């Protein structure tokens, strides 16, 4: 089962930085276990461009499509047996502490 892990900022992070896990360790471990298929950090939202087509016309706008306090700053594509395994992977990521993480399953059209 594939889960997209959106890594986001959060206005109220966990304050005890000393306890935050190390991201390099997280990547190495999950790559080795085959649970992380790929992932990357993203450029800041100020570099985003939003693209729409309406009545056949291209509409471009600067910035992300939603003005929210929580911004996506990275992603990781996970392969996990089920949601509980994905939650275990996500909770060990430093941004679960310093920000927040959204786990979104890939749509399964077999069902």
């Amino acid at each position, binding site marked *: 089962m594939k889960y997209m892990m959106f890594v986001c900022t959060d206005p109220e992070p966990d304050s005890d930085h000393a306890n935050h896990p190390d991201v390099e360790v997280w990547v190495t471990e999950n790559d080795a276990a085959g649970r992380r298929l790929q992932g990357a950090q993203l450029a800041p939202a100020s570099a985003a461009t939003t693209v729409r087509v309406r009545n056949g016309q291209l509409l471009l706008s600067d910035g992300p499509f939603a003005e929210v306090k929580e911004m996506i700053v990275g992603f990781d594509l996970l392969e996990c047996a*089920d*949601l*509980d395994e994905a939650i275990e992977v996500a909770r060990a990521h430093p941004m679960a502490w310093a920000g927040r993480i959204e*786990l979104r399953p890939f749509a*399964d059209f077999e069902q």
Partner: protein
Amino acid sequence: MTDPDRAAAADAVAATAVDAYPKIVAALIRITGDWTLAEDSAQEALLRALDRWPADGVPANPAGWLMTVARNRVLDVLRRASVERRKLRELAVLAVTAATAEPAWEEVTDDRLRLIFTCCHPALPIEARVALTLRTICAVPTADIARVFLVTESTMTRRLTRAKAKIAAARIPYRVPQGPALTERLPGVLAVLYLLFTQGYDADGEPAFADEAIRLTRLLVRLVPEQPEASALLALLLLQHSRHAARRDDNDDLVPLDRQDRSRWDRDAIAEGVRLLAGSPQPGPYAWQARIAACHATAPSAEETDWRRIADCYDQLARLQPSPVVALNRAVAYGYAYGPAVGLTRLAEASSGGALDGYPLALAVEADLLARQGNGERAAELFRAAAARTPGDAERRALLDRAAAR
């Protein structure tokens, strides 16, 4: 066929369903992964039993009969949908175990526990967890759940459908967590069961699902006997529920604890609750709440209540699970244990954060403490203010009575 036959058969169906229904649903979900199909098939088995048993007599193994009928319906549906052979084979095996007098209990037991943990999964919204537990494990009709939670039936149907869709789409596992994960997830399950007990009130203020909550908690205790907080929750529910018959007078008004007829309290439930509490080495929040309930339940009269012990228990509870409501109840206990002046000091501490501002119960507590200090006028004022903010009729009448009683 006579009406008594029909009534006897209906009783037999109900008696069998209490235990068998969740087992059947749980086993069918495990094999098919399809919650709706499992529920529909189990429901249909119950309907078939209501139809057949009055004429044919109650079968020798009623639970096995229901399992076989439900399983056959699942097989029919899946054959039509030409599902893979593996599931069909597993279902065939299920029918064999169900038909024998002693089914594979270990497996069935695990199934129900799996079902409880999946219904109470923290990735589901809390209202959905409570509703799903009632619907799937207790077989409460959607309309009844909707009525108690003050939403329309279609809203409740949508809520349940969305929860089941998330279980499938996000692949929430159908599994009992093991080791440290069990300890981490158990409080969430206990919270759902406690919510079932306390939150789902009928219009008349009675907890609508108290019996279901107690039955499920009892089951959970049997399934995870090594978890003391599960036993503590069962004790708490039994002790609170023991007062059930004494809570109202002939006018249907709520009777406060100190004026209840203690001879109407359920002694068996109290004895079981107290027994369950004996020997829990490191009491958790439910254990302290249950100990407080036990102090009340075992006091021969309101005057002989051991308030100092209750105040001690609240100290422990406030340490483990600090909350404005716990702090408020702690102030009440101190007021009875050490006099209204001490109670008012504790109340001032509890109120200092502002979380209790305008909370009717906090106003009523202050009013009670002031009344006992002899400040009847200010007390009556506060009782009226509390009544004005209280939605329940019976509770409001009780507060207005206090305002008039000085």
